[in-house]
């Protein structure tokens, strides 16, 4: 009985759905946590690229369009996490300053451990701040 319950529970967990890099790549552009930096687009874009690179994540793709610069990243599996995937968007012409949006998903939707979106956002925003400060802007 217990074994059957465990099996059913495992099936439910396995079939609940996993986030992939495509999940965050195709997410709404407004999804995630945003912050506006008081610098031009090109400077913030470069700072964001460097900030992400300094994190212990894998950069999976970078792309620039007429409206934004996008970085897709993933974080490796660990004992308490199946890993996470995330996206950073730097918006061109986002009004005063330059808006950066960070969104992230845990690969396992049921997982309560691992790095959450708030943590990714705060680390990336802090990294951008450091880059801008180091640049003397």
């Amino acid at each position, binding site marked *: 009985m217990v074994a059957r319950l465990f099996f059913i529970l495992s099936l439910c967990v396995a079939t609940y759905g996993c986030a992939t890099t495509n999940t965050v790549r195709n997410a709404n552009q407004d999804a995630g946590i945003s912050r506006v930096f008081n610098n031009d687009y090109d400077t913030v874009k470069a700072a964001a690229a460097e900030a992400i690179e300094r994190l212990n994540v*894998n950069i999976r793709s970078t792309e620039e369009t007429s409206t934004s610069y996008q970085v897709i990243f993933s974080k490796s599996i660990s004992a308490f996490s199946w890993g996470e995937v995330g996206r950073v968007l730097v918006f061109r012409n986002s009004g005063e300053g330059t808006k950066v949006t960070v969104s992230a998903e845990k690969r396992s939707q049921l997982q309560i451990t691992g790095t959450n979106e708030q943590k990714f956002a705060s680390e990336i925003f802090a990294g951008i701040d450091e880059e801008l400060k180091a640049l003397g802007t």
Partner: protein
Amino acid sequence: MRCILVFILSIGLLSCERLEREPISSDVTFYVGKVAAATRVDATKQESRGKRVALSALSLNSLVMVVGSTATEKDFGDDKVWKYELQLASGRPAVIFSYNVLSIGDCVRIRQSNISDDAALFLAAENLCAAINPIEQQN
């Protein structure tokens, strides 16, 4: 009992994978250069964390300096990184790998750490590169 101990130890070791950010070097030098060529290359072919190899060789009379910016892990995916060939204001060429997106002819500032192999590329005002064009014409 032994299995439980091994399991706990394994978890303890693997759980060290927290989100961490490398600090920026406080001792840096800025250089100015112009993007002469840009190509997309496979990041996995770059040396893992062996980025930023040789801008420190700026003081040397080397033909090509290689500075990577490809912080990668072993399980790195199929990412592409930009390989920029730069013409520095000093007249020397440099090669830098970066995730920043730049265009040929862009004027850039290069931030190079004096105590590590860390380097970063930032778009700069065009007037900073005004002196570079005559050097290119000489070549």
